[in-house]
């Protein structure tokens, strides 16, 4: 089987990958683009560990003469890293877990179940997907103010309970797509055995949707980790802010210091250090999950 499919892969299923010339071109292109993607990351890491003399020395561009942790420490202090990290982690994990559950329930309903006005609700789903959040942001602020939720995490978490929240419509669409590609036989068998929709969903469908769950969980986690818009709108006066908001505060602070005559050369490494601290947990998470993620993307039928 392995040998055969390898042979098959070699023979078919690809358009134009024969010949050394093509291979060389392929690698050239991929390495180029990969370099473009990686360069800012390298720049970020190298800039942040440069000490004062390296920063001022025009001969030092990529490789610093030594590793200096001062900027990183400074950035961590300005971000209030431990506390903000805790806030970001709990908000992102909570909303990712909740969105996986609530969006999969809604996605399953759209894919397999029957309910009144289904077409209308599906149109509502598509509408939610394409609507810019800015259209509803001001009334939402007023609504949450009325409920006394401003400067808490409720405005971010409560909509996710209902399958909304950041990009919730997209996740419902992904789950709908995934469930509608699954074969119907299993559900029918379970139904004949007398299982209701709830048991079928939680005992049969969810356990086999690992790939879709991984994709949605990671997207949801990463997007809510990076999102600064909603937290800054709903939590402008809070002291416990997520890292993404911390970064904009840090930028504002540095800009103010620069106006008062701080050293320009030291702004970069601190900013880069802060960016690194924010992105690091995501990179670690991605390093551990990328295998499932890549596989999940191919199997989910993310799209029609």
């Amino acid at each position: 089987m392995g040998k055969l499919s390898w042979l098959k892969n070699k023979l078919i299923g690809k358009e134009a990958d024969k010949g050394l010339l093509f291979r060389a071109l392929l690698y050239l292109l991929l390495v180029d683009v990969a370099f473009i993607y990686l360069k800012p990351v390298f720049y970020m890491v190298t800039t942040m560990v440069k000490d004062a003399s390296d920063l001022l020395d025009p001969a030092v561009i990529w490789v610093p003469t030594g590793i200096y942790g001062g900027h990183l420490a400074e950035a961590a202090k300005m971000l209030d890293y431990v506390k903000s990290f805790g806030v970001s982690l709990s908000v992102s994990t909570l909303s990712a877990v909740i969105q996986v559950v609530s969006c999969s329930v809604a996605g399953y309903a759209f894919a397999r179940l029957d309910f009144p006005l289904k077409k209308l609700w599906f149109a509502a789903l598509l509408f939610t997907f394409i609507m810019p959040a800015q259209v509803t942001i001001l009334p939402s602020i007023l609504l949450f103010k009325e409920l006394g939720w401003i400067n808490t995490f409720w405005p971010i978490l409560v909509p996710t309970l209902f399958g909304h929240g950041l990009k919730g419509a997209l996740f419902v669409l992904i789950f709908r797509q995934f469930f509608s590609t699954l074969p119907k036989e299993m559900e029918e068998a379970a139904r004949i055995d007398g299982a209701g929709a709830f048991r079928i969903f939680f005992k049969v469908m969810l356990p086999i949707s690992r790939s879709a769950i991984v994709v949605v969980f990671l997207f949801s986690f990463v997007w809510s980790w990076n999102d600064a818009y909603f937290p800054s709108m709903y939590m402008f006066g809070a002291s416990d802010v997520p890292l993404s908001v911390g970064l904009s505060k840090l930028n504002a602070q540095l800009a103010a210091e620069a106006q008062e005559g701080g050293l320009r050369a030291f702004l970069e490494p601190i900013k880069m250090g802060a960016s690194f601290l924010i992105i690091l947990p995501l990179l670690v998470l991605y390093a551990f999950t990328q295998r499932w993620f890549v596989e999940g993307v191919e199997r989910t039928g993310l799209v029609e």
Partner: protein
Amino acid sequence: MSLLPIKPKADAERSGALPLRRRRHASTLRKLEGSVFIAPWAIGFLAFVAFPLIYSLYMSFHQVRITVTGVNASWVGTQYFREILFADGGLLYDDLFPFLKEALVMIPIIIVFSLMIAILLNLEFLGRSAFRVIFFLPVIFASGQIIGEFIAQGEGSLGIISSLRMDGMLARYLPASWAGPIGNVIGSFVLVLWYSGVQILIFLAGRQTISRSVYEAARIDGADPWSTFWKITLPGMVPFIFLNVIYTIVDLFTYPSNPIIGKVTTENYGLSSALAWIYFVIVLLFIAIALVIYARVDRALSPKRQ
């Protein structure tokens, strides 16, 4: 709005009455189950989408004052809309038109680039998994403010553009109103690549839907790789191209760093709401254009695809 117009009939399953009645009971039960599943989402839609949407439309026709006791709204008619559209050009036009032109240039670049990368990543070659890991990095970076930091560093531009003096050439051969936005896009070309993360994923997933046997048949018929791409891969990817166009439009137009979006603030609720609505209509217009083109292309292709 009543969500559950169906009366629950719990004993439907075991009743064993007439087949017709039983079927009706079963279908009622299924509808009930479906309603229970969709209810949370539907309630959320009403509370967090429909209500704010209508309220925002209401506010756009009113002067809104937030006081201690509550919200005071007084009718001003279409004053804010007129102000934005006709009186004060600065609020909408100065930022909107350059942005729209940039978007028009960016969308094709993003689509073509991500399609190309997805097809390449779909080939079998040594180190493919390592490249895949790298090419998914934008999904992590591009949604955050980190990308803003990178632009600020000048990491967005390609060195080759400035070394070849492309901007000068652009200025010479293009009308001034277009040279600016195109120059911007080229200047932040790398950034365009950073926006392609999810699009690459969608194309990769979509590419899996074209079955291998089609390529096999093409090979047996003696089709060369070039015509295989144009006759099989591209037509097969048309739905995904349009899905990506719509995703890219939605993504670009709702990006928090977008110039218009930054203008929706709590300073003036009425004016901001009117601006958001005008902006939303523009987004809808773009999507409608994409859909119309898609319908045309799909119709043109469908006899061939059969």
